[in-house]
């Protein structure tokens, strides 16, 4: 299959105009010593053939019939209208809105996205998007270093392991030291960060404390106390949040977070084996000139018409080069649009229903497992929509259920050997009572 429009006659006309005899003459500037040898790329396929191959690959995946897997990526309803909008070619096949007069659709939708993220988080300014929640968190932590001129970062062990690993990589660049604040992993413990531990880790050289609400294990952290501990040490609080939870939970702006980072995937974006997702970042207006990435602002044209432009670009790589706040250029604009459409589609009432149903089903799930004496909660205290359960012989039983198309959540020992025989189980509004019954009986049968 080819997407070239040129006929042989077209090519001849162009070659004649250029004054060369063949296309090869246009490549004589590649010295013979470095010209490519033969390559092993298979021949072209017709559309029906390429579809057959991709269908074969899709068919090799087995999408579980029932899944309680979350661990940072959640199966929520993606309303049909979301795919409809982001599939529109005017959004999908445009690029960075450097020419605002012909990019108002993209620019206005980003301004709406920024506004929605501010409203959800209780913050004053939000960026146009980052690669994902993990890189948004890392960029927020580095921003805190610039703002405080300090060179260490404290991170709660309740932040997802994936995010902590990315944070570690980003910190290795400018050689910023990362200090991990433990969480209470004891049986029947809180599963959360002790503000006293956080306080102990924070010295006068620590730029920020990074903590997640809810945390990786689903538990609710004492964010106000953590914010207070950070501020007492002159550090900033970087709150890592799950966006649907903010329909119910206190917004980070209310407990004094200085920076907010989040994975926006739950807002209308499919799991898609890990991406594309969208990283959210929000901050206080006083810090805006240290923010990484694109920002859209409102302004007017000479006739007084309102319009939107990329703004405060003196922070960015194409203007500032080696002095830029970050090297980020291409972001995740189309995924930010998906989140924008999602939030407008569900509205305040719908988002609340999603959050409530998710947390009710998670509690229903935990209660059902406990009532059947199959598993028990690992931690005491409240959790949101994901619950950490102790299950004897978890790895074997998890594998046995997977064979039957049931994914019994996330095996916590994948990231922490101390958490053997522990499952992290997620519920969303898509989790039905029948799903819960199936999990309980399958686990009973696997004992």
């Amino acid at each position, binding site marked *: 299959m080819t997407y070239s429009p040129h006929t042989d006659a077209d090519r001849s006309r162009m070659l004649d105009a250029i004054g060369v005899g063949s296309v090869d003459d246009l490549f004589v500037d590649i010295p013979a010593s470095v010209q490519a040898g033969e390559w092993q790329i298979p021949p072209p396929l017709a559309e029906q053939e390429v579809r057959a191959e991709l269908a074969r690959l899709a068919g090799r995946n087995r999408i579980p019939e029932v899944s309680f897997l979350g661990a940072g990526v959640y199966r929520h309803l993606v309303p049909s209208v979301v795919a409809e909008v982001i599939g529109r070619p005017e959004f999908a096949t445009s690029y960075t809105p450097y020419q605002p007069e012909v990019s108002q659709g993209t620019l206005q939708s980003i301004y709406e996205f920024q506004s929605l993220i501010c409203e959800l988080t209780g913050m004053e300014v939000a960026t146009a998007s980052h690669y994902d929640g993990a890189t948004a968190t890392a960029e927020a932590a580095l921003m805190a270093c610039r703002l405080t001129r300090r060179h260490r970062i404290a991170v709660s062990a309740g932040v997802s392991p994936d995010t902590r690993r990315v944070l570690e990589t980003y910190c290795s660049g*400018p050689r910023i030291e990362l200090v991990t604040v433990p969480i209470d992993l004891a049986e029947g413990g809180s599963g959360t960060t002790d503000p006293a531990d956080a306080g102990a880790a924070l010295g006068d050289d620590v730029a920020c404390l990074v903590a997640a609400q809810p945390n990786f294990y689903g538990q609710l952290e004492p964010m106000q106390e953590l914010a207070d501990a950070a501020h007492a040490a002159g550090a900033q609080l970087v709150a890592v949040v799950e966006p649907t939870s903010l329909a119910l939970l206190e917004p980070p702006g209310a407990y004094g977070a200085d920076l907010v980072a989040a994975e926006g995937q739950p807002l209308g974006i499919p799991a898609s084996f890990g991406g594309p997702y969208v990283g959210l970042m929000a901050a206080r207006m006083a810090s805006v000139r240290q923010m990484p990435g694109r920002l859209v602002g409102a302004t007017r044209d000479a006739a007084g018409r309102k319009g939107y432009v990329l703004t405060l670009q003196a922070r960015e790589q194409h203007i500032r080069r080696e002095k830029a706040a970050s090297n980020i250029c291409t972001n995740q604009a189309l995924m930010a649009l998906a989140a924008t459409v999602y939030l407008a589609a569900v509205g305040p009432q719908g988002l609340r229903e999603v959050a409530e149903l998710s947390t009710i089903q998670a509690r229903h799930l935990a209660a059902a497992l406990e009532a059947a004496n199959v598993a028990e909660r690992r931690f005491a205290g409240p959790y949101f929509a994901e619950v950490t359960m102790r299950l004897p012989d978890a790895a074997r039983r998890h594998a046995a259920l997977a064979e039957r198309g049931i994914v019994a959540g996330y095996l916590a020992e994948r990231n922490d050997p101390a958490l053997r025989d522990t499952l992290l189980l997620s519920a969303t509004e898509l989790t039905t009572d029948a799903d819960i019954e199936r999990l309980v009986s399958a686990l009973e049968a696997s004992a």
Partner: protein
Amino acid sequence: MSVTESLPPDTSGRGAAFSGAEGGDELVIVEPLIFERSRPGRRAVRFPLASAESRERAAGQPELPASVLRSEAPRLPEVSELELLRHFNRLAHLNQAIDLNFYPLGSCTMKYNPKVNEWAARLPGLADSHPFDPEGLAQGSLELMWLLAEQLKAISGFDAVSLQPAAGAHGELTGMLMTRAFHSANGEGEQRTKVLVPDSAHGTNPATATMVGYQTVTIRSNERGGIDLEALRAALGPDVAALMITNPSTLGIFEDQIGDVVAAVKGAGAIAYMDGANLNAILGRFRPGEAGFDIMHFNLHKTFSTPHGGGGPGAGPVGVSARLEPYLPTPMPVLAAGDPAEVLANARAGRSTQGARFALDDERPDSIGKVRSCYGNFGMFVRAYTYIRSNGGAGLRTISDDAVLAANYLRVKLRDRYDVPYDRLSKHEVVFSGRRQKRSHGVTTLDIAKAILDHGIHPPTIYFPLIVEEALMVEPTETESLETLDHFIGVMREIAELAETDPAAVKRAPISTPVGRLDEAAAARRPDLRYVFPAGADDGPSTA
């Protein structure tokens, strides 16, 4: 009073549409913000209620304490699905896009994004695949990633490829972190502190060097638009970590001294990094890995046709030579059981690969770590793989042939009206200069770009590369027909003519777009970055 405020919303009933210069007065409609369409109690999507049994059983579990609950619901818009759809459809009408018209934005490779790629990315078996599903359930996703990496290796001549970076700049960051890991392993991590970057480079190159704690040293270009080899040799030394070079360069020129450049860099113990943004020009003609480069990032959203999405998502895989392979990000999709040649042959022939088993390899002790969550922008991998399979080896070569043909055609057809500071064979793009128009008639490149808008065409990249005065960077790509190219040539010649006869008319442009030139200085001086709810209307949504 602004037009937005003086007009009732949507008087035309269809929003502003692009109809080119003939559009006239009907193009003044501006769509209000979604917040302004909100009415308490309206909604689009509904969710089921929790069952009585669920509520009852949940009640025995710990309640969310009042201390963590928010007191007021977020003021999200309340709109019906139809209003929502119309809002975004009207916004869509305000955008220029590849699927509407020519979009020769230099350095961005705005080629056609084939629709079969979208079909593939939406297959439920791929779109609903969870990144932490047990590997046994995700063999298709893992196989696709492995196959794509194999194809990218064959295309680039590198020994290994990581798909993890999310965009080109992210690939650069990955490459520079690997550079430092390599030097550190050789005991030279502290000593090598500088990264050399030509003056024609993308801004991401120096910005990336800074993120890794390197100091950027700029290397000047020579009068032919290539790197100044003597300046490069003088800058190289035991304190240099890497050279980051874009080839073909941002001038659209192939660096014909590339063999000497790579030899000099490696001779000085530094890493040779190639910015692969412009790979679209050299498929099948030049393989950077084969030519001795250590690292290159690909831009799947450029060369491999994944849609640009208004600014992303992209995907920026990195290819590396064998000596850098240990440092690649973790995890790597690997073929855990099976013969690679046999798997490739079966996949190529459309046969089952059921015997093969794929896995994620996280046991990489020298790895720089993870650069993003999970494994990369997988949806882009699906599209890029579909594209490579559709085109095949022969098609990929034709892509570069036709892209280069089109850029050279534009160069020769416009060089009498616009200066071409480096008038040599073009690769994927050609950089014109508007200096003649500026000096003789006071018409700047910005004015020319705005005048192009009035013809329904997206302007080229302007004022980049920095070493070209009044730069107009035109990348036509291989998917534009000769008629489109000729039309663009006509438009550009007409604007050059108008700059001479009526410069004021060019400076008035654009006149047919939904808004005119916007006051960017005011936007930066008084940042208005979010919607402010009107006073008195903050009773909150109807959820309480």
